[in-house]
């Protein structure tokens, strides 16, 4: 695992040097969004790809993190660089709370339950006074910094979260935990009878898989400076994250990175040149095409297995 590790760290360090150059702000924005979706897709993959429990509501944990930092900023004026990990913790704690009854469910019911969780959070966020209701929440950076500095700092923080997620993914893949998760995916009952502590491993995978999206959401709230229930609890986030993961290749470390990068770039191109509605149609068509014709993702097509 030495080589993937070096490549991952090296590429991230290289990307981190970008703000030092005279790069346009848009490029920083684009890379930040890519880093965010790599985080989301890789984290989803820990549970959906490695363990075989595909969550259809992973956007919910992202949204929980975003709301956590926005509320901590509103009520206590705390900086997102401190509170983003708190957002991750809140997301992980929420997932742990629902884990026991949810992880027992069969695949299709697990999908419905996770999807519903996302909707419940969205409706609550939209209507509860504490979360700003329909008005949403503002998380404005202090005026003493200029936009470029703020964006660059948040970009670096997002890269750090992405790196942490990828390192965890690499570690999981090569550890006893990873083999245990693969055993659960390939036959949970059999794994259990062979002495794999399935409940504990699933819990661990779920918590890891929700902590990083929560942290990324925490940074995102501050980056876009205003959030509401539609922006961060949008069901399409959850679907897109799955699409990214399986487009690249679910169950691999490199797959979600590849899928997230490709789809974010494609989505930017479509939204700028055509319209969001066309993006829905195209993403839907890609999702169907991948499942029907390339179920192993792009990586299986090139015949390579990374990580």
């Amino acid at each position, binding site marked *: 695992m030495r080589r993937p590790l070096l490549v991952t760290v090296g590429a991230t360090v290289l990307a981190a040097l970008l703000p030092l150059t005279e790069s346009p702000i848009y490029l920083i924005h684009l890379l930040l969004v890519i880093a965010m979706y790599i985080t989301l897709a890789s984290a989803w993959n820990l549970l959906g790809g490695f363990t075989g429990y595909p969550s259809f509501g992973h956007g919910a944990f992202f949204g929980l993190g975003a709301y956590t930092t926005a509320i901590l900023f509103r009520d206590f004026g705390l900086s997102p660089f401190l509170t983003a990990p708190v957002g991750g913790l809140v997301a992980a704690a929420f997932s742990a709370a629902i884990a026991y009854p949810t992880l027992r469910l069969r695949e*299709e019911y697990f*999908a419905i339950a996770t*999807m519903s969780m996302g*909707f419940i959070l969205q*409706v*609550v966020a939209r*209507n509860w006074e504490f979360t700003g209701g329909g008005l949403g929440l503002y998380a404005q950076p202090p005026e003493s910094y200029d936009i470029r500095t703020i964006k660059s700092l948040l970009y670096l923080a997002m890269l750090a979260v992405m790196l942490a997620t990828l390192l965890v993914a690499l570690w999981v893949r090569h550890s006893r935990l990873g083999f245990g998760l693969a055993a659960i995916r390939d036959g949970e009952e059999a794994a259990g009878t062979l002495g794999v502590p399935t409940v504990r491993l699933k819990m661990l995978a779920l918590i890891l898989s929700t902590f990083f999206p929560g942290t990324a959401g925490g940074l995102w709230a501050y980056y876009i400076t205003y959030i509401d229930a539609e922006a961060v609890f949008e069901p399409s986030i959850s679907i897109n994250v799955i699409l990214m993961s399986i487009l690249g290749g679910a169950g691999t470390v490199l797959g979600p990175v590849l899928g997230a990068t490709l789809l974010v770039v494609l989505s930017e191109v479509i939204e700028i040149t055509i319209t969001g509605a066309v993006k*829905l149609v195209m*993403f839907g068509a890609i999702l169907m095409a991948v499942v029907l014709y390339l179920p192993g993702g792009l990586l299986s097509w090139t015949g390579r297995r990374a990580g």
Partner: protein
Amino acid sequence: MAVLQAVVTGILVGGIYAAMAVGLSIIFGVLKIINVAHAAIALLCAYVAYTAFSVFGVDPVASLVLTLPAALLIGGAMFRFLIRPVLGRPPLLSLLLLFGFVNVLEGVMLLAWTADPRALTPSYSASSLQVGPVIFSTTRLLGFAASSVVVGGLAVFLRRSFLGRAIRATMEDPQAALLMGVNTVRVSMIAFVMGVGTAAVGGTVLGLVYVFYPALHFLWIGKLFCIVVLGGVGSVGGVLAGATVLGVAESLTATFFPAVWAELVAYVLLVLTLWIRPAGLFGRLA
């Protein structure tokens, strides 16, 4: 009195829900596939009825002549290209395919009709019938009647006809049904297409009673999941019971709390049922 009105409204709305949920339940029962596109197809039918009404002045109920065959056609195409390739494979595959299809449908609706809310407003849409202290809105009564025809018709069909029996046999035990000479793939196709067909009736009724917009299908599919899970899979009686429970629970919630919280009822009921009794409150243990 508010409670009585809420219960009556809830029962009427529950009847409307049942028309759509019964199709979802049959599809799930026979194919073990969750048709997440069900509500989106219903919505598409509502939009077609909207255009037929606003451009050509066709009554929404009459436009079923158009939307019902359209839905059956969509169902057939979906079965051929999306469902059949993954029949009997892990449920994740069909879920992802259908979510992809939902994205396409929503995008098409956005392109064709924009995100602005629409409503079907025939002359009778604002009228109502008062019996004692209770008010029945005409569109809800009409929706309830249409749903009763669909649900009742399906119940009789499943119980009495040969094909209906084959469908129920496939639901109960596909292996045994196959051994008894049932062509289970064909039965699956018929069940799927029929199930999608109910979305046309459901969509027309939805359009008559509610304001609609392309992303609304997310809210509706949640309600339908809730009903199917409450009612237990593949049972018409269970669907009726589940739909009534949901309709009344929502209506009571909206009476005693700010109406927006009624949106939450379906999801909370759904998650709690899955946690406590995954086989459904009214269903047999599978």
